[in-house]
């Protein structure tokens, strides 16, 4: 067969002029999955980067970050991955006699055993305490490598959510929402005169009067639109 691959890793880098992440002026550039990022020698591999045949390769759509010798990608879109200690807002998705299953917006559900639930619960009485579809404020207790994870409701302020509304934003926008030292979030709370509890999984509980809730929603929409690098409706 006289076929030949049109692009090899080495020819790609020449064509795109991407001499790798060490190139100056390209430190912030957007990359796409499969893009060659130069030689892997002397480079540490960070988030969203893998080594294939001695070269660095992007696996996500995002911006390149170089910190020291570590090359990583800050993705444009992410899904929440639970970590122990995270504050999370979850929805009850099912229950057995002594366990609730909690949906956190993550790639896998967490369990909430009766022993870690809110107060004393009779065996078989899980559903009368928290029913399917109800929202809870909980904390991630542990996440195993196999992705089985446990949340707890034992702790300060952890409870079933009975009032207000829950809004969702992409988890990677949380930093922008909260701001330096919680400055932006504080301003948002003051402007809207609302209680806002932001969980690490990108969900937030907003409690207050209707005008305040609408104000918070408006601000969130604004932020979500701003963060979009690609204008909707673009094309060729």
């Amino acid at each position, binding site marked *: *067969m*006289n*076929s*030949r*691959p*049109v*692009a*090899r*890793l080495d020819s*790609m880098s020449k064509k795109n002029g991407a001499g790798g992440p060490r190139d100056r002026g390209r430190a912030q*550039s*957007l990359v*796409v*999955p*499969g*893009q*060659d990022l130069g030689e892997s020698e002397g480079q540490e591999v960070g988030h*969203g980067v*893998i080594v*294939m045949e001695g070269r660095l*390769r992007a*696996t*996500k*759509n*995002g911006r390149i970050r170089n910190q020291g010798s570590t090359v990583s990608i800050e*993705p*444009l*879109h*992410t*899904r929440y991955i639970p970590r122990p200690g995270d504050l999370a807002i979850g929805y009850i*998705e099912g229950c057995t006699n002594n366990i609730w299953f909690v*949906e956190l917006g*993550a*790639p*896998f*559900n967490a369990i909430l055993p009766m022993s870690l639930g809110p107060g004393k619960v009779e065996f078989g009485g899980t559903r009368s305490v928290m029913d399917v579809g109800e929202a809870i404020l909980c904390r991630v207790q542990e996440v195993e490598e*196999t*992705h089985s994870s446990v949340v707890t409701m034992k702790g300060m302020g952890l409870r079933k959510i009975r009032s207000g509304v829950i809004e969702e934003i992409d988890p990677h926008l949380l930093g922008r929402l909260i701001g330096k030292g919680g400055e932006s979030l504080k301003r948002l709370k003051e402007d809207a005169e609302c209680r806002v509890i932001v969980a690490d999984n990108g969900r937030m509980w907003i409690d207050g009067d209707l005008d305040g809730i609408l104000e918070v929603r408006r601000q969130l929409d604004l932020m979500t639109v701003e963060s*979009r*690098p*690609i*204008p*909707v*409706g*673009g*094309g*060729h």
Partner: protein
Amino acid sequence: MGGYGDVQMIDENGKRVDGRGPGDLRDITIETDVVPVADGSCRMTWGTNEVIVAVYGPMECHPRKLQRQDRAVLDVAYNMAPFSTTDRMRPGFNRRSREISKVTKDALESVVLLELYPRSKIRISIEVLSAEAGTRCVGLTAASVALADAGVPMTDMVVSVASGKINDVVVCDLNKEEDNYGEADLPMGILPNSGQLVFLQMDGDLSQEEFNQAWQYNMDAAQTIHNFMVDSLKGGEA
């Protein structure tokens, strides 16, 4: 195929029914982020084909019996809208959509880093709004853009394109007439950064030389299409 071997579809100068040369592609446009509620999405038009792909996940895998303890599973659903063809398409799954869903899933499984998300599921819905010819290629290509848009880690994006034979001439990217009345069709799924194949089908017969020519057309076309995909994901930014 077809049985209309005497239909003249290419003239002696190599000009085809729609005015293209043998190696030319139809017009392609790609847009991302077209389904706001989805984690990632893509609208792709290719000639008069139009396809929308939405990606959800990775998320908890239901039903649980489909879960894999060591990796995520892909749930690919290819569907043609009833109005996508001139004959009304009966809604729902059929033999053809099942086959295309399966080959698309197999192709994508070789690029998505599934082992990063054990017990999870990634749902990919491919909806064909307007079908001309080569919708499986459009669906697969658009699905890789939508996956990239969703932030799903992949070693490469799959570019899919077909070449075929009409009136004993090998041509790239068959249109409706060429697909129906031509002699052969060779759709391929190509990883543009390594030139590897993840998907290959053949309908009709090609000689060794014809196969090589079709292969070469597909490989060249894949680079062109890949540039479009990269552009759409970068949104015009370098």
